[in-house]
């Protein structure tokens, strides 16, 4: 247990060391929220004000998740390219575990700087009216969403064993997230077909599903979301372990 705390601490220190980067991120996310605010205001003129408020608070929440979630694929890529991965593989703690706890530490700092502002904006839009059960549901699904996204990034990262850099694959991922995860565009407004498709695929369960619970909390939806999240987390974990083993064995680690 102790090494986990240590890894979290390392992550926190990393975050604090890049405090300027965090302030920039805050700034950046505020600009992007401004754009979305005015866009949806223009779109939803004539509709009841409640809908606009709900949409914006949903988008703020999505933005928060996007910022908090780790960019593990880049970490893996860096380590493979520099050859440092050899050092990590020698440690008695599993490679993925090291990455997970370190990124949690980093996310804690991100939450402290950006999360508080985003949450305040969110609550302010909702006039600070939110049920305790909703908070609980959002919290639980958000944590699972974090794990799910982490596994997704890990899988993506293993590609670095095969390509020179994963920049391209990463762009690909963002493109898919854009339409299937609901982190930029509210899932509510998806056409019926896409809504259906997205509900089966894993991507929505690291973003949109959390937002849907925040908008319309219900225990049945909550249980459904949690079960699907758990299913994908386990599936991805098994897949990652399989792929990672093969990659490490079959690929000569690039030396410096």
């Amino acid at each position, binding site marked *: 247990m102790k090494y986990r705390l240590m890894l979290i601490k390392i992550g926190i220190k990393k975050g604090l060391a890049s405090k*300027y*980067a965090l*302030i*920039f*991120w805050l*700034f*950046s996310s505020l*600009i*992007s929220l*401004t*754009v979305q605010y*005015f*866009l949806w*205001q*223009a*779109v*939803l003129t*004539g509709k009841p004000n409640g809908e606009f408020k709900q949409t914006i608070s949903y988008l703020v929440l999505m933005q928060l998740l996007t910022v908090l979630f780790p960019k593990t694929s880049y970490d893996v890529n860096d380590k493979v390219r520099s050859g440092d991965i050899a050092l990590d593989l020698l440690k008695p703690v599993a490679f993925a575990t090291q990455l997970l706890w370190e990124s949690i530490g980093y996310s804690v700092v991100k939450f402290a700087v950006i999360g508080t502002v985003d949450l305040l904006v969110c609550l302010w839009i909702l006039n600070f009216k939110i049920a305790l059960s909703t908070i609980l549901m959002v919290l639980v699904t958000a944590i699972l969403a974090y794990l799910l996204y982490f596994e997704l990034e890990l899988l993506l990262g293993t590609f670095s064993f095969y*390509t*020179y*850099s*994963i*920049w*391209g*694959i*990463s*762009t*690909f991922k*963002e*493109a*898919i997230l*854009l*339409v299937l995860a609901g982190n*930029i*565009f509210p899932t509510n*407004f*998806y*056409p019926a077909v896409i809504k259906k498709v997205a509900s089966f695929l894993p991507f929505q369960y690291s973003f949109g599903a959390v937002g849907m619970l925040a908008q319309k909390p219900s225990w049945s939806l909550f249980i459904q979301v949690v079960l699907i999240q758990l299913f994908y987390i386990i599936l991805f974990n098994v897949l990652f372990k399989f792929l990672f083993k093969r990659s490490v064995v079959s690929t000569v680690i690039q030396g410096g």
Partner: protein
Amino acid sequence: MRYLKLLATYLKVNLKALAVYDLDFYFALAGMIIQNLLNILALRFIFNIVPRIKGYSFAQLLLTYALATLAFAIFRCFFINALNISDYIHDGCLDTILIKPVNPLFQLVNERVDEDAWGDLIVALLLLIIVDIQLHNPWYITVMFIFISLFTSLIFLGLAVLGNIVALLSNGLANLAETTFDFFDMSKYPLAIYSSALRLIMTFILPIGWVASIPQEKIAVKHEWVWLLLIPGACVFFFILIYQLWRVFLQKYQSTGS
């Protein structure tokens, strides 16, 4: 003339460097094309909710999107390294540039091209042509837009340089230049959707409105040809302003060495 030749050489070298990324390069290309298509799809979804946004139809909004993307793609394809100025200074690499008999900003900007903006460039050009046909804009308007984009991309270059200078003077905010990406997001929509205060800022302070919204309104809608000169003029003016700032900054760098 000399700089044109140099530009060609840089381009040759940079394209050769791109080839190193082979598989990844094609992934990125495909990724960017898909991302754009999905962006457009998302825009389409919005028009499932309402028929018009502030009087703009789907096709008109697509035109704004295409113009902004084209200008930004040109920026990314050719000027992207301007985002890395502060890195050059932090690791001392600016010195290797200053010892060469060529304008330092020119060298900096040309040292690298983006791996994955080429997909953007292709999509933006195609989209511009398709949308212009849909809107029944005559062919010369498309040509004018391409011409104007060469200049509006300078706005992004200016913003990137500005971001770096502010970052360096503020001793830290190293990623500030990345806000250029956020400004691009702002430029994708007509000025009409923003509040009047923001509209003023985007016209007269950070000239984001000049990237797509103003050219679209003045040329595609109102056919006021004088803007064919005014818009490039405004872009060049903004860039010269930033360039002067860059020179002041360079002087400071030379006097303090940091």
